[in-house]
């Protein structure tokens, strides 16, 4: 039996370094996965993950045990992602990141590459709320949970997901027509 996230988080907030380490190690991969879905590029995702790791000790004081730790953690990641986007004044940097990523990825797997390339690029073209929502839902999260992270209702999440799908479909159709 493992100690629950919430217990670890409370202990860490009280200054237990071992609990904090365990918590970070347990969730690092998931934070990175979500970071990738939110940013769509490996380099960006790595930076975002690092940001979250650096800030987490200070943030932890704000965890109050009223919700699941992971829900709280996803919110930290989503907020950090918003912050990064806002600060990234130079859009060119994004493009560069995408370019690098694409080269790497294509070398790795040509077939999946095309589809994913399209998906992630298409997601980048979505409005921010839709993209964040989709990223969370694609992370095997229920609509209710995603809503809690984003501070919106489960119904809104559902609407956003269908809206996102509609826009993706429209994009796909435009490309196929072209």
């Amino acid at each position, binding site marked *: 039996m493992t100690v629950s996230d919430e217990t670890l988080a409370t202990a*860490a907030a009280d*200054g237990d*370094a071992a609990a*904090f*380490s365990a918590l*970070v*190690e347990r969730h*690092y*991969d998931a934070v*990175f*996965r979500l970071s*990738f*879905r939110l940013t769509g590029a*490996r380099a960006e*995702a*790595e930076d975002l*993950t*690092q*940001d979250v*790791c*650096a*800030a*987490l*000790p*200070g*943030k932890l*004081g*704000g*965890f*109050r045990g*009223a*919700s699941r730790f992971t*829900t*709280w953690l996803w*919110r*930290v990641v989503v*907020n*950090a992602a*918003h*912050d*990064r986007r806002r600060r990234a004044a130079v859009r060119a940097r994004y493009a560069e990141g995408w370019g690098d990523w694409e080269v790497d*990825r294509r070398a790795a*797997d040509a077939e*999946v590459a095309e*589809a*994913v390339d*399209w*998906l*992630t690029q298409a997601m980048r073209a979505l409005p921010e709320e839709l993209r964040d929502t*989709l990223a969370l*839902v*694609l992370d*095997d999260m229920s609509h209710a949970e995603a809503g*809690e992270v984003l*501070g919106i209702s489960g119904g809104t999440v559902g609407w956003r*997901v269908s809206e996102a*799908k509609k826009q*993706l*479909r429209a994009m*796909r159709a435009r490309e196929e027509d072209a």
Partner: protein
Amino acid sequence: MSDDLDDLKAMMQAATPKPDAEKKAADIALARKNFADLQEARDGARQTSDRPKAGLFRGVTDMLMRMNTRGALTATTALVALGMVVVVPDWQNAPALRGTQPVVTEADDGLADAGLRREAPVPNAAEELTLDAAPAEPAPTAEAPRPAPEPQMAKPELGAETRRQAAPSAAQSIAPRELEGYAGGAANTTTVGRIAQPDADAATALPESDTEAFPEAEPNALKITAEEPVSTFSIDVDTASYGVVRSSLRAGTLPPKEAVRIEEMVNYFPYDYAAPEGDAPFAPTVSVTDTPWNPDTQLVHIAIQGEMPPVEDRPPLNIVFLIDTSGSMQAANKLPLLKQSLALMLPQLTERDSVAIVTYAGSAGQALAPTVATERETILGALDRLEAGGSTAGQAGLQQAYALAGEMRGEGDVSRVILATDGDFNVGISDPEALKEYIAQERESGTYLSVMGFGRGNLDDATMQALAQNGNGQAAYIDTLSEAQKVMVDQVSGALYPIADDVKIQVEFNPAAVVEYRLIGYETRALRREDFNNDRVDAGDIGAGHQVTALYEITPVGSPAQMGDPLRYGAAETVRAEADELGYFKLRYKAPGQDDSQLIEQPIVESGEAVTEARFAAAIAGFGQLLRDETYLGDWGYAEAIALANGAKGEDPFGYRAEAVQLMRLAESLSR
């Protein structure tokens, strides 16, 4: 392409790369480090001592004790602001306070409120990025009071322009919302122009803490002349210890023993010593008088008076103020007092001098580019904009300050970095040894370093000492505006213009005349015998008009005060039969910037009646030994010290000596 969610999921799953193992390890290490740093900062400011407090504040203090650091810090500041409001009725009308919380009773409520919030969140000062507002969980509203959402700290930016914008918001957001008004009030009202009441610190007794650090040094032991006839030490013009002793006594406690450095207490006072004549930059006077606390021993009084060059002959001066703007500097007796102190100093500078300001907190930044010292408005404006917040990246600050001092350097100029801090260096180099090395290296560039200590609570006296001693400078402790006046105005020449570097003293006692001797104080300044003639060994520096006093207690041959038994088989007889000479005094110094030292020497002979100055120095040395609980004084106590000091006040135009007598009386009462 399917728009089915499961397909999208599968595509995404395939696309998501695995995290890089190395990157992962580095990130986790970073998270751990930040976690540890945060805990350290927390522990650093946690209040632990349970010294009883005066009635009115006891409840409030108890509440503060249970709070976590930032909350405690801000609440302490609120308490200070409250103290200010109580002590200085005028401040209620101060424009910056108006509209925040000028009413004392309300202030009490605010504090009580803060006390409830035991888990006041810790703002993330050192944090490199600014995440969005911390996630506020949709917590049930009926819940008991919870910590307010974590306040955000603007990332400290380099450059004056951005700092200006970032600073105020940082200062505000440091406080939980309820306290914002108080924190802001304290920061805003204590502007440069306003004079703090020296009495205010009596109302706001020392913050209680166990994080003060003082250098450890055993008192100098009695030496037997036949075994160790030579005593060598570096001069010391620091005065910080006296300031610390004073602030402790005024707050109603005896100072910690290791905070008492007798030479710094003795050297705090101006003495009427003979001015140097001729080319030498200073004149040593050596006299021998009776020891007040022991009729069977004598006191060798070594007095050094530095020359005072006329103002117009002084070389142009480049000063870089390196100001600690970390969160711990927020108390009224720290950053606000510092601003006032620097404002006092400005009129002492001329249009040939220039001033720059570097600040450091989470990161270092330049707050004022080099500016001619007579542009008062510009400099005061920059000072005014300084706000406290964040951790203490002392090393980065030092590096930037030294670099700036290097840029400002011109032909024939004197460059000096003046570090103003509460001594806390919790980011970057935090090991005094490593700092020493860095500064010793920078010293070679010819830039001097002075250290001014502010506030109590986490005063790192050991680090301040290490910095000043290794940076060719002076350490002073500033607890009131009158102390600032003494250091920054009355003695500013000494603090700014060096007249001699690496001043070492060596005394050889004559075993035919002196059986035992003991150097009083200078424990942290001892040098090896062979270092005296080694010009590569660093020692203390003397500024214009500085005075240095050193005292030896000696036991003449045949005196009943002799502690050690004579050797049964005697020592090898190589003593020159000049029993009228008690010993031989030698002093080495270097002219500023020179590599080779000059030697001054003279014999020590009996002299007659103790002059006023020597008697006062002896009284202070006795006072220091009483505070350190040393065993050499016998029955001699505070009453005798007070009588001796009272009889040797001399002119005392500024009342420093009268103040010392008051402190002795306080110590007498407290030690009972």
